[in-house]
């Protein structure tokens, strides 16, 4: 078995060497024919990919790594398959289309093998070998695709976090942060950093945190808010929390969270009025009372 595997492997290597152009052309055509290819990759790009993969396959087959593990352990081949899959993931191809494209190379390789031998036993061994080799490639491609997508999702969620916490200047020395969605530890950190930087940049005296868009305030969210308020106060500014809707107010009271040390308002408009009032006072620091106007 092992000798026949070696000879089949040599045969495949030879076919890859001799018919390189033909194999690449055929694979590109096959992919274009199969409507599974739903990206806007053109023939030229596909051809480049094919040349790279075939050359990597040649290097891999020339080494002495067993075929089953070739794709996962041979460096160049692995990298080529990963790059191919990532490129297609970014171009918006589905994982199925990507692995099917890799798997369709099987057909092309077997066709090429038919030119080298007519012996059925040998062709069967060749089919087994090509299957082992490219099934691993298909699986790796799928795996990479999923990882690539995962990375995109994580990057987007980081970007969204930045996007969703804008610090806006509402009035002279008054800043506001409208919070939408959930306030977790990571988000609080972003909000705090942006807000503290904003206070420094705009020489703000009052910062309004509007929580109209926060669906629920539990003890963890309340604690995050308190930390932010403490940090703002350390910078010599005052903090107003606005947008506390009736259900949220009832829930906070029932939970037993004490927000009485923090100036709170029902709406952003009220908060702005309070902030303007605070900044109008000749000396703001240390003289405000939580009772408000």
């Amino acid at each position, binding site marked *: 078995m092992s000798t026949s595997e070696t000879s089949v492997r040599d045969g495949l290597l030879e076919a890859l060497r001799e018919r390189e152009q033909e194999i690449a052309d055929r694979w590109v055509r096959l992919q274009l024919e199969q409507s599974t290819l739903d990206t806007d990759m053109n023939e030229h790009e596909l051809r480049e990919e094919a040349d790279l993969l075939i050359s990597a396959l040649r290097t891999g087959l020339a080494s002495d790594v067993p075929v089953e593990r070739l794709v996962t352990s041979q460096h160049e081949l692995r990298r080529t398959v990963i790059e191919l899959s990532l490129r297609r993931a970014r171009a918006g191809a589905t994982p199925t289309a990507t692995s099917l494209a890799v798997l369709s190379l099987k057909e092309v390789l077997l066709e090429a093998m038919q030119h080298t031998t007519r012996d059925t036993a040998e062709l069967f061994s060749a089919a087994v070998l090509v299957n082992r080799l490219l099934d691993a490639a298909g699986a790796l491609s799928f795996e990479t695709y999923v990882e690539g997508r995962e990375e995109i999702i994580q990057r*987007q*969620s980081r970007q*969204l976090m930045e*996007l*969703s916490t804008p610090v806006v200047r509402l009035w002279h020395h008054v800043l506001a942060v409208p919070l*939408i*969605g*959930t306030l*977790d*530890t*990571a988000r609080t950190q972003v909000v705090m950093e942006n807000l503290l930087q904003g206070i420094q940049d705009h020489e703000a005296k009052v910062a309004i945190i509007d929580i109209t*868009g926060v*669906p*629920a*305030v*539990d*003890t*963890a969210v*309340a*604690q995050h808010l308190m930390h932010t308020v403490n940090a703002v106060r350390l910078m010599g500014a005052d903090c107003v929390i606005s947008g506390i809707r*009736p*259900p*949220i107010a*009832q*829930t906070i009271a*029932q*939970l*037993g*969270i004490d927000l009485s040390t923090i100036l709170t308002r029902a709406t952003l408009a009220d908060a702005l009025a309070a902030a303007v009032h605070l900044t109008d006072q000749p000396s703001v620091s240390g003289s405000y009372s939580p009772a408000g106007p």
Partner: protein
Amino acid sequence: MTLYDEQLTRSAGLGPQRSPVRAGSATYSVSSEEDLLTVRHAVRAATVEAGFGLVDQTRIVTAASELARNAYIHGGGGSLTIEQLRQPPQQGGRRGLRLTVRDEGPGIPDLESALTDGFTTGAGLGHGLGGAQRLMHEFSVHSTTGEGTTVVVTRWNGR
């Protein structure tokens, strides 16, 4: 903002059980910060389905959030089960929602203190467990040191 909402919806949809809770029960894993989000969305959907008003919805979601966070932070991860309840007609036929939060963490050695406001072993505010008790109608805790904690809470619609 729309984008962010979509993101929220989508990430909630990535959870193990996406389909709305129907008359029976559904269990969600609580083992990451994202799971807390999934759980809150699922509980919110369940409260809407049970016909709770906005204030009660917020109460139940907040209680679920407290309990799930406890299981995640103190219990090292666990699960939350949502059950839709309906009383027999002779008892009023009210609808209700029961949440069961389980973890296999170290357990709560001193339940009495844990239910006291301001008591905390971690860095939290210490209102979570007692707060959840006040937010719901029925509340029970079973905790065995070294084996884990189970908290069962229920709230009825229109008492």
